[in-house]
């Protein structure tokens, strides 16, 4: 469960003010809003990459706003994916486990499990430069999921994909969600994406959450 209460974040001349949102355990929340209104800033604050001026962030009831990013247990997929270009797909996915000194056999098994789930088993030895846009998305998702994060933050992950690949990714996200039971906060501009994936929706405008809706049951997964 992710709960953000009265959060204020200063980012140069721009600021987010009094942000409050609650994403229940296992929910898939969509965060919408026009470009440049602070969606990425909010995600960065939640995962610990940006300092919070005021307010609280709770994960499963535990306050994390003063913890460094590495201790929050949040999986983050940025808009540009930022894959590690000098590592293979397998090394990218296993990175979080490698850092935690997980035994190699266990790391390998987890990488294989995620590769199977994401349909990228045949790509494990490739370098990121040799992947298509959709394949890169899957690798970035696998890398974020490897350490079984409590919350997954996705920053416009499908914005650069063609329609067919995007549809494939929606289906994949449903499968991933079923398999991992992850709590997700997903930033997007796309209403169709919000309808296809979201349980609840937040709209950010002028640095504040201005709308919070639960879609009709038929549109939920």
């Amino acid at each position, binding site marked *: 469960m992710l709960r953000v209460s009265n959060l204020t974040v200063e980012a140069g001349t721009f600021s987010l003010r009094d942000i409050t949102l609650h994403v229940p355990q296992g929910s898939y929340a969509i965060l919408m809003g026009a470009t440049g209104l602070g969606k990425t800033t909010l995600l960065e604050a939640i995962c610990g*990459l940006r300092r919070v001026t005021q307010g609280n962030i709770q994960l499963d009831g535990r306050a994390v706003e003063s913890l460094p990013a*590495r201790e929050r247990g949040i999986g983050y997929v940025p808009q540009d994916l930022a894959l590690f270009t000098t590592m293979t797909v397998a090394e990218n996915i296993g990175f979080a486990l490698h*850092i935690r000194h997980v035994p190699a056999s266990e790391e390998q098994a987890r990488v294989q499990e995620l590769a199977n789930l994401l349909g990228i088993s045949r790509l494990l030895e490739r370098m990121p430069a040799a992947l298509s846009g959709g394949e890169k998305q899957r690798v970035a998702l696998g890398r974020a999921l490897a350490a079984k994060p409590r919350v997954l933050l996705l920053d416009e992950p499908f914005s650069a994909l063609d329609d067919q690949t995007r549809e494939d990714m929606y289906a994949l996200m449903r499968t991933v969600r079923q398999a991992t039971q992850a709590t997700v906060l997903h930033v997007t501009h796309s209403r169709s994406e919000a309808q296809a994936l979201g349980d609840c929706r937040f709209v950010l405008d002028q640095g504040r959450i201005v709308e919070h809706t639960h879609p009709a049951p038929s549109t939920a997964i």
Partner: protein
Amino acid sequence: MIPRWPNRDTWFLIALGTALGGYVLLILAMLVVDAAHTRFDVIWRAVHDPDILFAVKLSVFSCTISALLSVLVAVPIGYLMSRMRFPGRTLIDVCLDIPIVLPPLVIGLSLLILFQTSAGRALESWFQALTGSGITYEVPAVILAQFMVACAFAVRTMRATFDQTNPRAEQVALTLGCTRAQAFRLVALPEAWRGVVTAGTLAWARALGEFGPILVFAGATRQRTEVLSTTVFLELSVGRLDTAVAVSLLMILIAVLVLVLVRRWGALGEGAR
């Protein structure tokens, strides 16, 4: 339809080609007249002259040490200046460029004066006790003089390299469990590998060509602090133009050899990733 020739693009391409061709021609012309100005037997004599042989060895040794030191210092400075925002950053940025814009003789003179201060003398005494060698007018002075200039170029290269690598990858590494040091070592540094090789190569080449600060701070004593650049000066000063040119050609040969080897090694390192 085939575009009419010449057209506006043609003139632009001719301008680009003229700039490239003119500059490369000038470089090649210098090398050719150098080669034409001396004879093979003079070069042969030069490479068997014990003084020149010493200068070759000291040049290769001092340039390698100063290039390694430059990379060791330039990588963290380049990373810090590229990634962090802190008070006084602009002033420090200007400060880092001073060795690039200062006349080389002034750098040598400044080093000489620095080591005449009480702090400098204390450092020299400490170094003497530690290694048995002084600094001023000794081999360490050669390395320090080369380092002062070479490092500034290495810092610029590393900063540009880190500016061009995506900081987002390091941020993702932080969310995956890395400390900042781990994110630097495991993500930023491997991605900057090509820049590290370029910085080292540039520092080595700068160090080989350095003359002014070495002459002032280390002197040009034969079999002691003489490097190839000072050999050219010494040979010219006693009127042996043929030998000066032969040593110059030797410097060109060594520089090309090292640059090719380092670039090849850099490409291998890149391919292994």
